[in-house]
């Protein structure tokens, strides 16, 4: 294919990401399992790169997990979402950035449904007035926080203290990128690179010195499945899908995995532990797992943050082998200390997965 043709096709898969001034909403799962990632996101965008990312306490869950577990009607989640958008407007913003991939898919889908069915949009505006006495509004731009970091990736690279390079070999680290399904599978035009060639994480990795690994099941779901995870009787569905991905990526020997969905990061970390403990199978080097990082954690490491400030101590697949490859110093004795340096014990060790 001629170069110009390729460029034209690629341009269809780009999205406009505003440079500044966002109303920020959090993620239920990221807050629970990766709260330090959200803290890092705000630190990087606000304090290091000088952007205006506003948060206030009044936003809530978008209800996405309740909706995709089929416990609430569509009209309910639409009205909760309308409330979130109304809070954005109330505080003078028109750019909306969310931390959760499930939420991102929900927002995009709802805006599209309102566009297709104006009478439904009018009903939701009325619901909002009746329940919250808030003025209905829609954002000019909806982006995911990974879009924002993608947008700022070169500014982060310019301030980087470390590159995604193996300090012992000088070679780029080999990275698997995993995109949460609801980022672009439903509305490919709303994600950087679409569903087929998502570039939101690959772009970060390339800018920060790493190398992306392709593998057959790259686009397969991590297996969250909402009801398929929350109910213990269904949990084999979730485990089996992660297992399928790891079996597929194993021959490519990635140094780590980066994800933009907090659920995926949790599942790909924890199911490695379960596979190791139940089957004796490990996917990393010398009996270790493959570390699974959020993009905020990777950005933070590149910028020289203390790994324990980034919450890397709360990963079940221990990250020390990766830190060694990156040449990032860390203090093992401080890994599990409390905020004031107090001793709060440490996790028991897995019996098979090497730490």
């Amino acid at each position, binding site marked *: 294919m001629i170069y110009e043709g390729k460029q034209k096709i690629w341009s269809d898969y780009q999205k406009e990401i505003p440079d500044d001034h966002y109303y920020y909403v959090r993620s239920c799962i990221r807050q629970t399992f990766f709260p*330090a990632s959200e803290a890092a996101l705000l630190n990087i965008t606000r304090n290091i790169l000088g952007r205006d990312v506003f948060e*206030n306490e009044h936003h*809530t869950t978008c209800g996405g997990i309740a909706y995709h577990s089929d416990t*609430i*009607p569509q009209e309910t989640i639409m009205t909760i979402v309308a409330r979130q958008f109304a809070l954005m407007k109330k505080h003078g913003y028109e750019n909306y950035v969310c931390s959760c991939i499930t939420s991102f898919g929900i927002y995009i889908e709802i805006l599209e449904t309102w566009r297709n069915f104006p009478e439904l949009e009018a009903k939701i505006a009325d619901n909002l007035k009746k329940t919250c006495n808030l003025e209905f509004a829609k954002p000019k731009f909806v982006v995911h926080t990974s879009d924002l970091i993608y947008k700022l990736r070169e500014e982060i690279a310019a301030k980087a203290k470390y590159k995604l390079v193996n300090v012992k070999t000088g070679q780029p680290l080999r990275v698997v990128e995993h995109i949460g399904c609801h980022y672009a599978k439903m509305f490919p035009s709303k994600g950087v690179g679409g*569903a087929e060639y998502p570039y939101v994480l690959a772009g970060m990795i390339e800018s920060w010195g790493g190398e992306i690994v392709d593998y057959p099941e790259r686009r397969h779901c991590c297996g969250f499945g909402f009801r398929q995870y929350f109910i213990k009787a269904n949990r084999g569905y979730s485990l089996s899908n992660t297992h399928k991905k790891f079996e597929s990526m194993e021959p490519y020997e990635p140094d780590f995995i980066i994800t933009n969905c907090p659920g995926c990061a949790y599942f790909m970390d924890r199911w490695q532990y379960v596979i190791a403990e139940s089957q004796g199978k490990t996917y990393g080097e010398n009996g270790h797992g493959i570390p699974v990082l959020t993009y905020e954690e990777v950005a933070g490491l590149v910028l020289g943050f203390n790994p*324990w400030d980034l919450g890397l101590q709360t990963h079940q697949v221990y990250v020390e082998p990766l830190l060694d490859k990156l040449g990032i110093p860390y203090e093992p004795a401080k890994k599990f200390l409390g905020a004031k340096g107090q001793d*709060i014990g440490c996790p028991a060790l897995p019996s098979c997965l090497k730490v």
Partner: protein
Amino acid sequence: MGKLYDTLMKDYRLREGLNACINCGTCTAVCPAAEFYRYDPRRIVDIVQSGDDEKIEELLKGDTIWYCGECMSCLTRCPRKNAPGLVIMALRSLSIDLGYFIESEKGRQQYLLSRDICGNVLNYGYCVYPRKFDYKSHPEAGKVWEWEEQHLEEVYERLGANLEGSGPGALRKIPDEDLAQLKKIFDLTGATKRMETVREAGRRKAEELGLTEEEFSAMLYEQSSPRHLNRK
């Protein structure tokens, strides 16, 4: 076309998710659920499209509509831009509204999902909340979560969260006036009614099986028949 079909077609998700399926089976080929469960989204869409109420009722009372993980991988690959995942969501909603969900092993799990997730939304303002995510029920969360659970306040403080604190921040206490608005939204838009439908159907089912609520909940959480699985 039958009455159930007509009701389904009022659901916006079906109006957006079904545009003359050609039955190519691409959705089934890419479906994470179809590999794990005895599940064929192509067949489900075909049944809905047929408008045959008898077969639709069978779906609404059976296990198969509960196998989907709502990842929406099907939508990406469908050559006609259908969304079997959205069709499933509409079927599940109707199954719950009609009380049919309680007839199947997988469907009646809604009793727990509704109680726990909607409970989190209304009580805390979060779908997932660390104080309601215990290691005992989630051993897969690992030794590290066991430790976090034992030292929740200290760990979250170390990680820069604002657990149950005032003002903004991760895991902050959502102000009461905001929780009250969520409750009003639930009441007006049918979520409270759906919760009551599910709770009442579950209560009756437990009684029919001669189980206490606790025993019924444990059964729903743990029990899975091997007949669901797509293996020999």
